[in-house]
């Protein structure tokens, strides 16, 4: 005869009542939302200009793909004292997320020490911002590897960049690494989803560090920054590591994106509002300038 002691029944009842957290989906009435443009354009000497122009959407809007949100009928112009160029729409396959991304691109390479003005004309409104291509390249001294280090994201391996900050405050640095993935490599993208687009192909991927480092507390000193690589790797695989030197507008903009992304995932962090930037209240965006160091060949030791 099956018997279940009263103590166990009590335990079940107590557990069910005292700790019975109930979760259900709830409908939230959307609040009125005035759409804006999302503009990102970073220019660097020697490269043709690009500008990513998308539209923001109400929170529960079902459209989330670049093809849905790209603003095709904007007029995007880049001007300097040497003239004005109208940028044209183009696209490229994102091999990790497996969709095409759309952007505006020019033909005339950017020149150093110039002031550029980006203007996006859309639905009768002109949104513009300026950037100066006066960043100085800071070269990497060396790139090393540590199998373990601790940061906000726990304990993991790291690629270590060594360089010396140039004198004068207001320098902002970011990690960049390009790698080739062979046909037999499996790319684990964000969310550890195997990208079908990259399987069986040779794919070039660029990792850009999310964290931007400032020289506010170490002007002119030697810097060592440690980066957790994003994608899986094998011993002997090769990457080409560079150091980006950014302007302040770029730092301010991407820093708030970085902090918001953290707050989205971490329930213990206050939400971060994206504040109106260079383009005013009708757009969320940045128009900045940066330079890139020479690359250092890096071989994964494990």
């Amino acid at each position: 005869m099956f018997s279940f002691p009263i103590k166990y029944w009590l335990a079940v009842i107590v557990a069910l009542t005292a700790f019975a957290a109930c979760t259900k989906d709830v409908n939230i009435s959307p609040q009125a939302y005035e759409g804006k443009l999302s503009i990102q354009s970073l220019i660097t000497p020697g490269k043709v200009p690009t500008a990513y122009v998308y539209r923001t959407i109400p929170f529960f809007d079902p459209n989330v793909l670049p093809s849905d949100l790209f603003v095709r009928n904007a007029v995007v112009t880049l001007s300097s004292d040497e003239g004005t160029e109208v940028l044209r729409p183009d696209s490229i396959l994102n091999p990790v997320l497996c969709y095409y991304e759309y952007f505006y691109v020019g033909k005339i390479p950017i020149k150093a020490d110039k002031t550029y003005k980006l203007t996006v004309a859309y639905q009768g409104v002109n949104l513009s911002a300026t950037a100066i291509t006066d960043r100085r390249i800071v070269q990497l001294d060396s790139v090393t590897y540590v199998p373990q280090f601790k940061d906000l994201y726990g304990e993991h391996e790291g690629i270590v960049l060594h360089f010396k900050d140039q004198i004068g405050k207001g320098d902002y640095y970011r990690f960049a690494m390009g790698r080739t993935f062979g046909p037999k490599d499996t790319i684990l993208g964000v969310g550890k989803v195997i990208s079908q687009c990259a399987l069986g192909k040779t794919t070039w991927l660029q990792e850009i560090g999310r964290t931007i480092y400032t020289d506010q507390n170490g002007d002119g000193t030697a810097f060592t920054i440690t980066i957790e690589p994003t994608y899986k790797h094998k011993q002997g695989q090769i990457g080409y590591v560079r150091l980006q030197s950014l302007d302040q507008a770029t730092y301010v903009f991407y820093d708030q994106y970085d902090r918001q992304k953290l707050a989205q995932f971490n329930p213990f962090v206050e939400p971060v509002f994206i504040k109106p930037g260079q383009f005013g209240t009708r757009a969320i965006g940045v128009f900045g300038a940066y330079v890139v160091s020479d690359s250092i060949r890096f071989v994964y030791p494990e």
Partner: protein
Amino acid sequence: MERIPIHFLWFFLFLTGQLFAQNNLSGYVRDADTGEVLIGATVAVTEFKTGTTTNTYGYFSLGIPALGDSVSLVFSYVGYQPLAVRVRISTSLEPLKINLLPENSQLEEVVIKAHADNENVERTNMSIINLSVSQIKAIPVIAGERDVLKAVQFLPGVSAGSEGTTGFYVRGGNIDQNLVLLDEAVVYNPNHLFGLVSTFNVNALNSVTLIKGGFPAQYGGRLSSVLDVTMREGNKKKFSGEGGIGIISSNLTLEGPIQKDKSSFIMSARRSYLDLFLLPLNKGSNKTDYKLYDLNIKINYELGKKDHLFASIFKGNDKAQYTGANALNYGIGFGNSTGTLRWNHLLGTKVFVNTSLIYNQYHLGLNTTQGQYYALLYTQIQDYTAKSLLEWYPNNHHAVKIGIQYSQHALAPAAVSAKIPKKGSRLQIKPDSIPRSYADESAFFFNDEIRLGARFGASVGVRVPVFSSKSKTYTALEPRLTVKYSVNPSTSVKAAYTVMNQFLHLVPSSTASLPTDIWIQSSSVVKPQTSQQVALGLFHNFGDNQYEASVEGYYKNMKNQVLFKEGTQLLLASDLEKQLTFGAGNSYGVELFVRKNTGKLTGWVSYTWSKTTQTFQELNLGKPFPFTYDRRHNLSVVGIYELSKKWNLSADFVFNTGAAYTLATGRVPVFNDGTLYDGIYYDFTARNNYRLGNYHRLDVSATRHQTKTWWKHKVETEWVFGVYNLYSHRNPYFVYLSTDPATRQPLAKQVSLLPIIPSVSWHFKF
């Protein structure tokens, strides 16, 4: 420069002159059965239509015009039979010892009755509500746990957090703005079980008073309220006890004389046993555990006719662990300890001095995991306090309180929030290695309750707090003023203006669903919180004082409110002060309160309409936003009905506008050359722009009283049958966002905690 002392001298001479123009009667009012002091008992002189009330120690002093050789006094108190006595007046009067009989001691029916007086109309102070312990015991609460704070949450101007959050919110103030005192010791977190049950064991309590505005000058250090809880002294006549067994916990209170009529003790303990029941389920890594206990001990001793010593200690602890649901996964331990040593001394019949030495300690340690992130928090406060209060009753027109207070605070805050590492260990907080920050807080205060004729009264006071931390010293001046005009014996109008300062701050987290709050002190960066409050009220009794009613309106502004900056990620090495942002708050509202104190049906209806906003330069794009617990409508109905001499019925209903929370209104696509920035970001257009669903629930209970004889002793027993949240309304606890894996669409999910919870408990008293 010399004018101030001269004026002070004149003032002193004036009062002294008044002193010699009258005789004084003084004494203590106590329960005749137990010798317990009665706090707030009314003393009326029938010939002169004047009177007073007893203080926290049951003491009164009353000026009598020198017109005869005797005078008639009437003593009355809620639940006690009024007592009329005629007292001979002599110049060497010793303190009177007045003993009042409980109303049910000679009546067949057990009826909660109050003396039919108009004290709420007559007294000068406003925004004060006294709760009797008998009422608190009768209100149905969760799992049969009789509770002070749940009763307080039913009062006007007070709102609760959502289930699972701690504390109560008064007139738009945060929970840290409530000064909770137990026998004068500060209790920083008066909650057990995440706010479902308070730390106060009602069997050990004598009185509970909530002050929301018009604060007398002896109170300070918090902006929004004072909850003054006084422990009983213990039965001076005979050994007795009471206790209860419920589904969550059991409690036992023992009390009795050490030396009859001279000294007594009371000891009260409570412990939960969820941990014992859950033992069979806690196998493997998933563990759910909860343990709480509290202990109150108080001893008092009459050294002589003029000296009285009290020693009381309180210790309460909670320890909980829950592993399972991804949205709610935690381990928490917190506790309060207090110790108070007090000395009452009478200087003649007009001066009462209370001197106290107080120790209190509060600590909270929390580790919690939600999704891929974890947070650790530890906060500790330790205070040593010495204070002395002199109460001077020179005549019937003045009741002067002068005092001085000193506290040393030691705080140890630390917090971490990080992603769960793929490998390796998580960060740890070691409480002993957290750097302590020390501060000194002292205050001088003066308050005079003035009676000007039959209609006018005023309470005039000033408090001067001084706070010194390592980096900064702050001095403030806090005027306190309440005026009263009696329209007639049953109606009065009152107005109050108060300035308050607060030097210890609880920095709340608006996002987490657990109490990840942390205490810090004022410094050169963190300025003291300050508030100014004005209140206006109309007080009216009707039905021969069976009903008391009031309407109060208030406006309060609060400066130097503190919150975490956007995106603050707490790290062990973080300098907390750099993670804070400062702003202002505004609150205004109207509170309606109707209470029936006598008859078979007692209880009250309370409704509050209020609006509270905050403005921070660095938050919400600098625009005002609703306070998280800004509840526009707050309705509470409490009813207690004596069905028969054996059965009591009680019910309460509560309705609150849902708490505010923040959701983005738009999404920002970022597709940027396949970089790690690619993704969808949130476009927040306003902070606290959404509301949780309205909170409402109905609780009911039925109590069966019996008197039995066990082992030749009379024992009163009670069975209490209760149902919490009778119609099982799924009240919102918090809302979080998730993403549909198929459509990649955001989903809103609401977590609710407490459905219908039936309970039964058994109580006894001998």
